[in-house]
């Protein structure tokens, strides 16, 4: 062990400085706490009003410092995966091609694969049906939220298409969201179903129609 300097006082930070730093620490800890709290403090009746006040007050700092996270990993339940299949067509006589991302054979290292996985997962998480849902037609605030969310979804969708068109110098790209449903213990243990069984993948429709499948999973 090396000799230590023991001359420093118990709390070298004195007076107003300690009060100022304390206030900043309180603000920062509340800013860390609020985003995941607000994710949980919401339900069919809306979000916690007091939470909204605090969150809106601290929002500039939360956004600026990249603190707006829910920390709900694999929660409330692990859910199915989502992929994106792209059909790429050309005007110059080349045959159309299809690619799906994420793809472990194409994206390396694993972190780059995971980035592509997040692109498809988060696009799917942002999905909003193209028509204003019936149940919120009488709720102007919810209708406005739907409109913004739908616009953001379309923006991402369009960006993905344009990226693939530019990458492949293609004339047209068609995107399809694909859900890979979860496989339960019975299917693997008793039926020896492989995890990539074709009937566990199905296309998601853009009109909001959700097919009935024998999935046990719940989207997180």
């Amino acid at each position, binding site marked *: *062990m090396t000799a230590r*300097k023991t001359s*420093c006082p118990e709390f*070298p*930070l004195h007076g107003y400085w300690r009060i100022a*730093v*304390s206030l900043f*620490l309180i603000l*920062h*800890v509340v800013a860390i*706490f609020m985003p*995941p*709290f607000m*994710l*949980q403090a919401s339900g069919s009746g809306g979000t916690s009003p007091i939470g909204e006040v605090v969150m809106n007050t601290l*929002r*500039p700092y939360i*956004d*600026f*410092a*990249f603190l707006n*996270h*829910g*920390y*709900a*990993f*694999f*929660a*409330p*339940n*692990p859910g199915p*995966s989502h*992929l994106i299949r792209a059909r790429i067509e050309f005007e110059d006589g080349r045959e159309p091609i299809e690619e799906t991302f994420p793809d472990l054979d194409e994206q*390396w*290292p694993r*972190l*780059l694969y*995971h*980035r*592509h996985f*997040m*692109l498809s997962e*988060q*696009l799917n998480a942002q999905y909003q049906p193209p028509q204003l849902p019936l149940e919120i037609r009488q709720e102007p605030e919810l209708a406005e939220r739907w409109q913004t969310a739908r616009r*953001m979804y379309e923006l*991402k969708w369009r*960006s*993905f298409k*344009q*990226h693939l068109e530019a*990458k492949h110098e293609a004339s047209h790209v068609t995107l399809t969201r694909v859900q890979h449903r*979860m*496989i339960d*213990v019975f299917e*693997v*243990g008793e039926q020896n179903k492989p*995890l*990539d069984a074709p009937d566990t993948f199905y296309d998601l429709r853009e009109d909001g129609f959700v097919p009935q499948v024998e999935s046990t*999973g*719940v989207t997180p």
Partner: protein
Amino acid sequence: MNSLLQASKEWTSDVVAGWNKFWFTPSEPHTLSLIRILAGAMLLYTHLVWSNDLIAFLGPDSWIPGEAARELQQGSYAWSHLWYIGSPGVLWAQHIVVLIIMAMLMVGLFSRVTSVLACLITISYCHRLEGALFGLDQVNAMLATYLMIGPSGAVYSVDRWLAKRKAGGSLAPPVATTNGNIAIRLIQVHMCVIYLFGGISKMRGEMWWDGTAVWYAVSNLEYQSLDMTWLVRYPWVIATLSHVTVFWETFYCFLVWPRATRPIVLALAACVHGGIALFLGMITFGVAMIIGNAAFLPSSWVENALASLIKRWNAPLSAETTTPSRRLPKQSV
């Protein structure tokens, strides 16, 4: 009434004393410096991986172009210098500078400056890359933010080595500092918040209660990096892992502080995140969370452990240089 007033005063004074002790007791920089090396390496790796497909993620025709990324952040106070860079050449030039800064942070060169730059860069990249982020980026940004607060380059750094050389070979031991303590405390508190809400959000799900959640995590083909479906034969193992995970996460913020329970809580953290790293294809996220947990290691423990590691590392080397049989034969004149 007087006794109530007296009790309130004592309570307030105890709270203030506890607050001061927790945040403002100076601490030595060894744990923070260890975190600098590990988090610096993770930041360097994370940004290095962007290089594999830099233009596809940040270029003018990227998955989400700069303008679209700005629109996605509309109404928020997010910011990014990358929103304004369109030219691939400029993008690459700035990215190379970014990699150099991350490498400098890792080795501890000009760490007071590089830690601030690394934090700003990390957050700026995150705001630009909205849509491709996950838990790793949240932990990276958290660690980069707190490394900038404390003297993360005080030991185990090129800065220290340069200062020692300048001082003629001997240098006073590093000083315990208040900002070093605040940085470590903030990492600790932030980790507690992450786990608390990680646990609470899982408690709202059915699968964490019926004991099947871990099965659905390990049998997810897109996450899976090692096939763990053999666990199907041991449902009690799956259920135990599910229940332990949710209770450990929820109560982490209480059990990590007492000395008696801290080693158990940290050992579980190593197991859970080691599992995520090995089996769920998120080696970077698993390792980043373990780095965050390192904030709970006492500085003296880190100092002793690393000193003993360095001693062991050096022992064979010094033996190699002093063992006569290994020496080169003297040349005859």
